[in-house]
């Protein structure tokens, strides 16, 4: 593993919100080398620094906002990964990734990450301008949307080029699926990251950096990143996926997934949405698209900024992406394009995870349809499929936590337990985290990854070993996972050798990824997850066949699911109950987890 002393060390800001203590700490080289950065390193810190069984919303809970070795250096290396204990599940790891410009800006300020701990006695925001780091009063920002907060902070600091991560009213009010937003439409949304900030009294983190990035071998870095840049520029036109992202962004794929019969519709009862021709395909491009936007350095520009040009939401600037629109649009049976994209923006403004929010709304709609929730239970809201006005009324209640909104704000699992009357069977979640945009009956691979994913269902986790290894690497490096699929991973090894001074080869790719994923699995077991019991899908997936679309008649049979899961357990070095084998943990240098695993298996 080379000579650690010669290698670059990380500078991490440790912020104690309770005591207003701000320190710069260095992390052990061994951890950085073995866990790279972002998601991997966050998992290692979470294991080491937090106590078993800690409540994710108490002062002792910590959050790690980490860049990776390539953040701010390479085109598209714009991402950060936020790692924490998930308030949505209460007993698993939570992580959330966001791109745009915030991560590189932190690097240019001279830091590789931030550790947040404690709880501020009053609302604050963290201001970082190069060497100046301070907690500032956020009393006047409390209650404002993520958009307003971003704007107000820039005005207050008299520099429009500050990059601001902020929570909205949802995070302040501890809605379990609150997000953290930046650049208006970008968010680290999943797993309740915004809820953690809300519990700590942290409204925002504003960063401005004006320094050069320190690297181990600067000429080498410049050469290697230049090669990647050339490749990415050529991918704009020469790679089919790259070309599609340049031209259409990712929300165009709604139609493709619908055609395959696996797009969410009516709370995962169907995998086909009959209103797709109104909201899918080129409809957005033709009617609302205005211009493309990119993350830092990326030549693709897959974010499609637009404006609602007609209907009741006309004049609203929007920037839809696949997941949020899938769950809100087809998921809630909304066939009006303007409503779908505006609702997705509304979630960003209020600081809500649009994916979870769409899922919960679909759940409540089905409860209303089946008479489980009465008009009275819903405080008079006629929550019919596709009723946009009713949806907005309901969402306002969720953000304010009033009446039915207070119940739904706890997430679909807890809400269904509170509502009862058989609604538990309509709650589409794993481990307490809401399903995203695919219907497992129509796409078994998606179903498998929903169940085995360590942070709860997401299609980012990957369904095959190779996919999972690629994604965990992307989140740890930290680079865009689209870009990861467009280039040869060897290029990242060249970049790591030059940026960090590591003696690293591509042969380590699978080993490092497996180490990170096994550690996350061990962490979940430590915190109370029983894999065999918790790596499961809701009953509907196994028993209720889809009735429309290409996959009409399909379920994900329980036996097939169990066989798929068992195959995956074996491939990942786990026993038949999903617990990592001791010899496997030893092999991957995870000896420190062995006492926990041994205790669990006894």
């Amino acid at each position, binding site marked *: 593993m080379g000579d650690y002393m010669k290698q670059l060390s990380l500078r991490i800001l440790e912020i104690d919100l309770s005591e207003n203590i701000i320190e710069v700490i260095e992390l052990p080289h061994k951890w950085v080398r073995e866990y790279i950065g972002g998601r991997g390193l966050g998992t290692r810190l979470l294991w080491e620094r937090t106590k078993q069984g800690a409540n994710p919303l108490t002062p002792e809970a910590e959050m790690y906002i980490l860049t990776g070795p390539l953040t*701010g*250096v390479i*085109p598209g290396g714009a991402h950060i990964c936020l790692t924490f204990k998930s308030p949505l599940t209460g007993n698993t790891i939570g992580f959330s990734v966001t791109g745009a*410009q915030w991560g*590189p800006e932190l690097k*240019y300020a001279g830091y590789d990450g931030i550790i947040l701990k404690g709880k501020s006695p009053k609302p604050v925001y963290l201001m970082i301008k190069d060497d100046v780091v301070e907690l500032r009063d956020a009393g006047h920002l409390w209650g404002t949307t993520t958009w307003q907060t971003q704007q107000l902070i820039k005005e207050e600091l008299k520099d*429009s*080029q500050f990059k601001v991560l902020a929570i909205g009213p949802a995070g302040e009010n501890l809605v379990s699926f609150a997000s953290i937003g930046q*650049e*208006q439409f970008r968010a680290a949304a999943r797993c309740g990251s915004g809820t953690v900030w809300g519990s700590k009294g942290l409204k925002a983190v504003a960063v401005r*950096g*004006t*320094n*050069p*990035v320190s*690297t181990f071998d*600067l*000429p080498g*870095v*410049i050469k290697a*990143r*230049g090669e990647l*840049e050339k490749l*990415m*520029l050529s991918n*704009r036109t020469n790679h089919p996926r790259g070309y599609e992202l340049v031209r259409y962004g990712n929300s165009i794929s709604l139609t493709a997934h619908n055609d395959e019969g696996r797009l969410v519709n009516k709370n995962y009862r169907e995998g086909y949405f009959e209103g797709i021709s109104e909201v899918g395909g080129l409809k957005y491009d033709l009617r609302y698209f*205005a*211009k*493309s*936007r*990119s*993350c*830092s*350095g*990326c*030549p*693709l*520009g897959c*974010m499609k*900024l637009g*404006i609602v*040009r007609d209907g009741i939401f006309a*004049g*609203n*600037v929007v*920037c839809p992406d696949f997941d949020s629109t899938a769950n809100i649009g087809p998921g809630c049976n909304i066939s009006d394009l303007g409503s779908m994209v505006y609702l997705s923006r509304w979630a960003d403004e209020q600081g809500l995870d649009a994916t979870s929010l769409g899922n919960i709304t679909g759940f409540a709609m089905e409860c209303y349809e089946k008479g489980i929730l009465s008009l009275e239970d819903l405080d008079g809201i006629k929550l019919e499929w596709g009723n946009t006005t009713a949806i907005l009324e309901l969402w306002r209640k969720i953000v304010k936590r009033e009446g039915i909104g207070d119940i739904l704000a706890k997430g679909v699992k807890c809400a269904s337990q509170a509502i009862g009357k058989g609604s538990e069977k309509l709650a589409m979640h794993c481990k307490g985290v809401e399903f995203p945009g695919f219907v497992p009956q129509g796409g078994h691979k998606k179903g498998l990854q929903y169940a085995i994913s360590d942070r709860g269902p997401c299609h980012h986790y990957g369904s095959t070993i190779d996919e999972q290894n690629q994604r965990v690497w992307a989140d740890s490096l930290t680079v865009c996972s689209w870009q990861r699929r467009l280039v040869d991973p060897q290029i990242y090894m060249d970049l790591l050798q030059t940026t960090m001074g590591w003696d690293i080869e591509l042969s380590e790719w699978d080993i490092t990824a497996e180490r990170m994923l096994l550690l996350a699995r061990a962490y979940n077991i430590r915190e109370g997850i029983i894999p065999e019991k918790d790596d499961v899908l809701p009953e509907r997936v196994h028993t209720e066949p889809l009735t429309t679309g290409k996959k009409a008649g399909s379920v994900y049979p329980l036996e097939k699911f169990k066989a798929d899961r068992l195959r995956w357990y074996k491939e990942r070095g786990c026993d038949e109950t999903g617990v990592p084998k001791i010899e496997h943990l030893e092999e991957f240098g995870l000896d420190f987890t062995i006492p926990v695993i041994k205790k669990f298996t006894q």
Partner: protein
Amino acid sequence: MLGRLDIRYDKCTGCKACQMACAINKEKQIWPEAARIKVVQIGLGPLDIPVACHQCSDHPCVAACPEKVKALSYDPESGVVLINEEKCLREQGLQCQRCFRACPGEAVSYHPKRGTPLFCDLCGGNPVCVTACGPQALSYNLDPCFESRHLNRNAYEIARELAVKVFGREEIK
């Protein structure tokens, strides 16, 4: 004579690859803040506006540089403004901002460490920012009739007009 930088604001995605390329070429560092071109984000969207020197033919920055200092000069052969950093008052720690104030596009920025103003020399006729621009918002225009002075305006003004162009309406929310 060299050409001039031409900008299609509607095509800019705000990735700042131009900034990175400029800093690498001029400073040999991964240091976007030290670039001669800057992309700023403004308003709803937000909209991304590249701010760069447009090589005004009357170069008001040169005229504004104090007579006794003459750190700036116009090179008639290439058509670009050159800076002699040693002569610049800012090099001596003074906070002179005359070139910045004279620039109609507020395109003069200061080096984050040295403090001296940064001037674009079009990389001698092969601007690296243009090569790095994926969405082709930046181009290098060699037409001698192309006077890019109309691009050389306050970024907020450009953003206001751009919003009307891309969103197709003045009232946006």
